[in-house]
C-alpha cells in the first residue's frame, strides 16, 4: 500500500492549532481557496471533479457524492437546497462534532462549493441540539463568513448567492437519515419520506435537495483545491481519500483518527491508539457505529478499514465508529442496549420497524428479567431477518443487522444467560 497510507489531514487539518476555529486561521492556512478555485470552474466541472475524486458519502451508506450531486435537475430554475447533515447520532460516532470543533469554516466552504455545483442558493446545517458549544461555534463561523463576504447575495463579487442557516434537531436518531432530516427541517416529525422521489429531485419542501454528511462536505474544499488526482492517491482504489475513524472503548487513546481508507485496523488499535488498557482484551468490535454487524476478535485479524474489506467480512464501515468491546462487557447487555436504542429511536412509521424493534426490546427485557425462553434467540433472529429491507429507511436494517450478528456470533453466551436466568 505504501504511499496510499500517508496520513494526510483533510478534514482534521486544523486539529490542535491555536485559535483553530477562527476565520483568520482558516484563511491563513489556505481556507476558502477551494471555493475561489471552484468559482473559476463551471458547476458541471465541479461535480465532475468530485466524481473523479471518488469521494463517497461519509455518513454511513458510502454513496458516491459526485453522483448524488449530478442527480439534481440542471434546468430546474426554482430553489434548491444544500443540507449539511450534522445530526450526528449513530452510537459510537463523534467525528462531525470533531470537525466542527476543528474548524467549522471547512463545512461552510464545502457547502458553498456544493451549492455552486448544483445551483442552490440556500443551505442549512442541521445539528443535534445537545451540541450546545458546537452550535455556538457554527453560528460564529457563519457570522464571520457573512462578514468576510464568503456568504451573501454576491459572494466574492462573482454574483453567486448563497445563504446558510443553522437548524437544531431535537433528539431523534432518525433525523440523521436524510429524508427524516428533511421532514424535521420542515418542522414535522422526523419521519423519513417515501422514496422515490429521491431528495435530489424532490426533497426539502419538494424541491431538489442534496443532503451530505458534515465529513463529506468538509472534504470537498480539499478535493477542489488539490484536484481529484491527489485525492485518488490516498486510500484504496474503490474507497479513495481519508476517513475519520472514531475509536472508542478501553483503548489507551480513544479519539478521532483521520486515516486513509484501507488502513489496517490492528495497526490503528495497537499503534495509533496505543493498544488496550492493561487487563482488558478485545472480545469483539463494532466497526461502523452500532448499526454495523459485530465482528469477533478473530475477524479483525488482517482487516483493513475500507468499505469493501469490511463488507467482505459481513459488516460495514458505516460512519467509521469503531467500538472496541472488551471482555468486561456481557453480550446480553450489549444486545439489550442495542435493541433498546433502536426501540427508543424507531420513528414508528413503518410497521416492521415499529413493531419489530419493540418486539426485540420486549424479548430482551424478558431475558434480562430471567423470563427468557429457549427459542428466544431463534425468534430474535427470525424477527430481525424479516425486518430487514422492508421499510422506508434503513433504521429497521440498522436494528436487525447487529441483532442478527450478535445472536449468531455470541449466541452461546446469551443462551447460557437465558438458561441460568441471570447475568452470565
Amino acid at each position, binding site marked *: 500500500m505504501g504511499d496510499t497510507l500517508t496520513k494526510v489531514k483533510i478534514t482534521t487539518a486544523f486539529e490542535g492549532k491555536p485559535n483553530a476555529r477562527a476565520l483568520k486561521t482558516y484563511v491563513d492556512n489556505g481556507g476558502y481557496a477551494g471555493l475561489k478555485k471552484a468559482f473559476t470552474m463551471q458547476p458541471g466541472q465541479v461535480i465532475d471533479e468530485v466524481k473523479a475524486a471518488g469521494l463517497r458519502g461519509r455518513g454511513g451508506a458510502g454513496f458516491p457524492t459526485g453522483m448524488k450531486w449530478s442527480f439534481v435537475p440542471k434546468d430546474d430554475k426554482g430553489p434548491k437546497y444544500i443540507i449539511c447533515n450534522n445530526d450526528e447520532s449513530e452510537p459510537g460516532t463523534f467525528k462531525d462534532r470533531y470537525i466542527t470543533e476543528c474548524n467549522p469554516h471547512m463545512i461552510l466552504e464545502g457547502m458553498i462549493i456544493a451549492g455552486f455545483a448544483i445551483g442552490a442558493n440556500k443551505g442549512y446545517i442541521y445539528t443535534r441540539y445537545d451540541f450546545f458549544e458546537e452550535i455556538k461555534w457554527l453560528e460564529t463561523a457563519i457570522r464571520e463568513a457573512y462578514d468576510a463576504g464568503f456568504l451573501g447575495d454576491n459572494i466574492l463579487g462573482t454574483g453567486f448567492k448563497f445563504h446558510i442557516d443553522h437548524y437544531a434537531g431535537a433528539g431523534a436518531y432518525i433525523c440523521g437519515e436524510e429524508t427524516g432530516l428533511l421532514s424535521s427541517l420542515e418542522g414535522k416529525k422526523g419521519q423519513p419520506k417515501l422514496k422515490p422521489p429521491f431528495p435530489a429531485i424532490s426533497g426539502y419542501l419538494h424541491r431538489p435537495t442534496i443532503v451530505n454528511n458534515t465529513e463529506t462536505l468538509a472534504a470537498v474544499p480539499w478535493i477542489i483545491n488539490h484536484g481529484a488526482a491527489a485525492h485518488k492517491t490516498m486510500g484504496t482504489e474503490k474507497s479513495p481519500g481519508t476517513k475519520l475513524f472514531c475509536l472508542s472503548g478501553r483503548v489507551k487513546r480513544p479519539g478521532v483518527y483521520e486515516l486513509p481508507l484501507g488502513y489496517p485496523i490492528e495497526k490503528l488499535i495497537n499503534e495509533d491508539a496505543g493498544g488496550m488498557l492493561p487487563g482488558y482484551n478485545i472480545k469483539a468490535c463494532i466497526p461502523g457505529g452500532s448499526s454495523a454487524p459485530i465482528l469477533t476478535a478473530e475477524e479483525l485479524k488482517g482487516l483493513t478499514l475500507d468499505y469493501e474489506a469490511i463488507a467482505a467480512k459481513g459488516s460495514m464501515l458505516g460512519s467509521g465508529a469503531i467500538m472496541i468491546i472488551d471482555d468486561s462487557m456481557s453480550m446480553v447487555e450489549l444486545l439489550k442496549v442495542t435493541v433498546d436504542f433502536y426501540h427508543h429511536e424507531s420513528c414508528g412509521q413503518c410497521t416492521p420497524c415499529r413493531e419489530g424493534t419493540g418486539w426485540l426490546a420486549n424479548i430482551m427485557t424478558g431475558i434480562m428479567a430471567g423470563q427468557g425462553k429457549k427459542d428466544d434467540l431463534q*425468534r430474535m433472529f427470525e424477527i430481525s431477518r424479516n425486518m430487514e429491507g422492508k421499510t422506508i429507511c434503513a433504521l429497521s436494517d440498522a436494528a436487525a443487522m447487529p441483532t442478527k450478528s450478535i445472536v449468531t456470533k455470541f449466541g452461546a453466551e446469551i443462551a447460557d444467560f437465558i438458561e441460568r436466568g441471570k447475568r452470565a
Partner: protein
Amino acid sequence: MSETVTFKLNGKDVTVPKGTTVMEAARRENVEIPHFCWHPGLSVAGVCRFCMVKVEGRPKLEIACNLQATNGMDVKTDTEEAKSAHKWALEFHLINHPLDCPICDQAGECGLQDYYMSVGKYQSQMTRPKVLKPKMLDVGRDLVLDTERCILCSRCVRFEEEVTKTGALGIFDRGDRAIIGTYPGEKIDHNYQTNLVDICPVGAFTSRDFRFKQRVWFLKDKPAVCPGCSTGCSVDVYGKPETRSYFRLKPRKGEANGHWMCDKGRHMYSHLNQDVRLRTALTTDAQGRRKDTNFAGAIEDLGKRIAAVNPATDVALLVSAQHTSEEYKSLFDFFVGELGIKKVFQWREPTEKIDAFDGLLYRGDHNANTSGLLSALKEAGLAAGLKNEFDAVASSGAKIVIAVTPEVPSTFPSFEQQLNRLTELDFVSFWTLAGSVADNKKTKHAIPMKGFPEKKGTFINHEGKAGKLDSPFPCPVADGRDLTEIIAALKQWRHSHGSR
C-alpha cells in the same frame, strides 16, 4: 389515456396508463395485493409495508403502492419471498393488537381478520406482554377511538389533512408508543367524521351510531343513492332483511361522491325502521271515525272520494322532491294527464338554502330528486318553480289534497308544523313513510309508502346526473307501496268502478 406502459403482473401482460402504480394496476386486474395504508382516495403513505411485491431483477421486494409500472417490468405477487413478506408484515401488525374481536364492531369486515385468513402466519411467536394504550376515547360526535387496535396506517390522519383539511388528527409520540389522536380535550367536529370509521382498516375507529347494534355478518348490503341532499352520493344500505331492519349507510365509490359521504347522509336509514314508520293505511268513515285499514281499503276510500268530485278542479297535489323520476312520471301521467288536475304544488322546506354547499359533498337542497321533479313537472306542462307552496294549497279551494310527503322527515325541520297545517284542510290523503302522520289525531287518510332502498328508480342530482336505485330490500311495512304502485291501484279501482 395518452401514454401507456405494458408490464407483466404474475406472468400476464397488463397495459395501463403511464404513471399508474402497480397497486392500481393490480386492482384493475383483480389481483389481490394485501394492503392497509393505501387507499384509492388518499395520498400514498407506504408505511404498512404489507403490499410487498417481487420485481424480477431487483434485489429487494418493493411496495406496490409506490411502485410505478414501467415498460417491461416483471412483477410477481405470489413468489415465496413475497408471501413470506406478507405473512410477517401481518404478524408485525398483530403482535400488539389486542385481538378483542369479540367486542369489536369491525369484526367481520376487518382487514386484519381478512388478511389473517388469506395470508396469515397462523403460528404466532409473540410470547411477551403487549403494549397497552388508551381505549374508548371520545374523539367526536360519532367516533370512538381505540388506540390499542390501531395499526398506525395513518389513513385517518391523511383524510383529515387531505380531504377535510382540518388536520385534527395527529400521531403523537414515536416508535411503538405512537398513538393516534386529536389534540387533548378536542374533538373532531365536521360533517365527514364517519368516513374515518370506513377507512380505518381495523376497529380503531368505530361509529357511535352503529356501535354494538349488530354484527356485520348478519347484514346485507345493497347499492342505492343517498336521499339526503341533491349531491346524490352512491351508497350501500346495510340492513337485516330477516328482521326488516336497517342499520347504516356507507359510501360506495361513485362519480358524485368519490369515496366519501357526509354524516348527515349516514342517518338516512333511521326513518326506514318500523318503529318510526307509518305501518298501516288509515281511513276515516262518514261518522268521522278513523280506522286502520289495508292498502286496498285505503285505495277504495280514496277512489270513492275522487269519484265524488270533479277532479280537475277539486283535487290538488302537493309533491315533495324526494321520490324517483319514474314515480313522478306515473303520478303526473295519471293526475295531470288523465284527471286533468292543474293544482300541483310543491312541498319544500321554507328555510332551505338551495345553493348552499360545504365545498365537499353536502348541499343545501335536501332533496335527492329536485331536478327529476322539475323535469317531470315540465313534461306534464306545469310551471316549475322552486318554492314552498303550502299557502297556495290552502287557498286553492281543493276538496281533496293528495300530499306526497318528503320521505325523510329529518331533512325538513318544519315537517310536523306543515303536517299540522295540512290536517286543518278538508281532506288530505297523506302518502308517506312518517309514523308521525298517524300519530296526528286529525289525519283522515294515509297510505304508507316504500323508502328509497325498497324501490327501483332514478334520482337526478344537482348536476343532472342519474343515480339508480335498482336492488330493493323487502319493505318492512306490509302495505308499503311506491307512487307507481299506488297510482296503478287507483287506476285499477277506477277502472273496475266504471269511471275513467
